[in-house]
């Protein structure tokens, strides 16, 4: 996307986001929209580490949880403004991201091992949050409403939340755009495509992986604070559960890894499906939408590994139909004979 196109898309989105709460007055629809925006924001955050640097994490729920719990606990115990909690939480999450990232990258944990390690990392947070006294375990914490105002990050209406999360999403997308256009972004992609080649070209692989981990954790944590302030109730399984991390991963992969709009697009498409499924089958089937997510994830990985943004690219290219290539891949993927004879000759 050229810069001019980007500016046009951006101004149209900004305008529609501004008008949206004025047109939509239904509280439920506005609520769903806020959740959609939050999911898109989280997917964008995940994408910086997962999409641009290629380190797929299943541990982002921990950063989300740090954001939610830090602001809430500071507010409950010391009456500190959630805005201070937001910054504190983000700093703690960044530190954790850098710490875990450093350990993983220093000792060469990557690919599926990184997936497993990050999963274990967030499970540790989950277990601690369930068992420790001051988080009130699985009972969770209800945040008291102390009058809607900007200072207390609590509003009686939905629209201020909508504007807040819209601003967050726009900033996240802009940040991704500038990263993808900057030297930093090129270094990120170099690291993703081939670590050893990047290293050989003089790219400090460790530094760029850590930058991505830190930025990603920072952003995810802010999303956590927003969630806590919006829902006003947090408990370990809804905040640090594995599904939180899986959601971010699925939205990014379905939308298109390492693209500016892909993760948000994935969330815009998938979250309404989840909400509709839940509305259709009732609240007792919490995980039903995950069946659809699982199926979509598999289909995307097997047939359209570039995600929805990849489809757009393929359409632009014309005849190189991405589906045909996917089908081919499906049919002959394990045509090892050909593959290996190629390698040998």
């Amino acid at each position, binding site marked *: 996307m050229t810069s001019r196109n980007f500016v046009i898309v951006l101004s149209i989105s900004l305008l529609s986001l501004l008008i949206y709460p004025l047109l939509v007055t239904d509280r439920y629809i506005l609520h769903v929209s806020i959740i959609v925006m939050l999911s898109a924001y989280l997917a964008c955050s995940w994408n910086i580490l997962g999409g641009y640097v290629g380190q797929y994490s299943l541990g982002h729920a921990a950063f989300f949880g740090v954001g939610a719990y830090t602001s809430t606990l500071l507010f409950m115990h010391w009456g500190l403004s959630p805005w201070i909690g937001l910054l504190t939480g983000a700093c703690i999450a960044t530190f954790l991201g850098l710490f875990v990232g450093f350990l993983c990258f220093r*000792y060469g944990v990557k*690919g599926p091992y990184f997936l497993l390690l990050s999963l*274990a990392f967030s499970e540790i947070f989950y*277990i601690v949050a369930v068992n420790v006294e001051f988080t009130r375990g699985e009972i969770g914490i209800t945040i008291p409403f102390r009058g809607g105002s900007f200072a207390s990050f609590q509003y009686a209406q939905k629209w201020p939340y909508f504007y807040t999360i819209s601003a967050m999403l726009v900033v996240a997308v802009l940040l991704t755009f500038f990263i993808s256009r900057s030297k930093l972004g090129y270094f990120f992609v170099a690291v993703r495509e081939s670590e050893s080649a990047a290293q050989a070209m003089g790219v400090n692989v460790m530094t760029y992986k850590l930058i991505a981990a830190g930025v990603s954790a920072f952003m995810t944590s802010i999303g956590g604070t927003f969630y806590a302030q919006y829902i006003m109730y947090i408990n370990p399984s809804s905040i640090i559960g594995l599904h939180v991390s*899986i959601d971010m991963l699925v939205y990014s992969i379905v939308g298109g890894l390492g693209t500016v709009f892909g993760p948000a697009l994935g969330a815009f498409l998938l979250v309404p499906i989840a909400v509709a499924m839940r509305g259709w089958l009732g609240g007792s089937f919490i995980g039903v939408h995950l069946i659809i997510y699982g199926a979509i994830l598999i289909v995307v990985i097997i047939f359209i590994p570039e995600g929805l943004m990849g489809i757009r690219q393929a359409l632009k290219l014309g005849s190189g139909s991405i589906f045909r290539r996917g089908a081919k891949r499906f049919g002959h993927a394990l045509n090892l004979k050909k593959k290996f004879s190629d390698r040998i000759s």
Partner: protein
Amino acid sequence: MILTLPLFLQAFMDGLIMGGIYALVAIGLTLIFGVMEIVNFTQGDFLMIAMYTSFFLHLLLKLDPYLSIFISTPLLFIFGIIIYRIFIRPIVTSILNGALVTIGLSLIFQNSALLLFSADYRLLEVSYSSVKITLGPVVIGIQYLIAFVICFTMTISLYKLLQSTRLGLFIKAAAEDRVAAMLVGVNVEKVYMYSFAIGVASLGIVGPLLAPIYYTTPTIGTLFNIKAFVIVVLGGMGSIIGAMIGGLTIGVVETIGSVFLPGSLSPLISFVAFIIILLFKPKGLFGERQI
């Protein structure tokens, strides 16, 4: 809590028994990883399917869980082949896509089970479930003992299968080097299929053994999957002997840990051990890929 000797022995014995069961779950995982380098996130969910199979066979047909092994194992073998052919084959060359596709499958299985069977905790109760065997200071439930004995025997047989049969030889060859195996005429694609199916079918044995011991829930897979990962990483990805020793170790460490640690903190030991091993000894304590 003060750890007295009888308490320690009891915990040790319980741990050893659970460890034997963990080991067989982990061996399926390690076989699949060792042969085709797929980190299988669905492994635990196959166990869940086996447990439900045995639970409903007992509920509807009054079939003894130990007899339902003979139904659930072939069932899972065939299921494994189907899953392999449809979902695993297209992505078998990419280790990361393998992980992601199995995560997707796991989401589908778990939540379908949730939809079909609800989140209720179900325990298969057999008439002899209160029979206990006393060995000195240690008391063992009969179903635990049976589970341990069968799991241990199966582990040994699986090891023997790999060591001394033609299929085992092929599997080892394919795990060692795909291309070379192919060059000497091994049908690698078939070997992959059978290894996957064997890895899944081993859970057809564990499921019915676990159903009278553990509550069957749709999410039981996650619990066992994570434990199996810990064991496999501990023992070395792809090592069967490693998975056996790893299973017994984790079983014992966890039960003894649960005596000390308050609440549900005892899984913490496994996770911390997992992270430390993955970081500092990623090939496991016994080296890797010795199928």
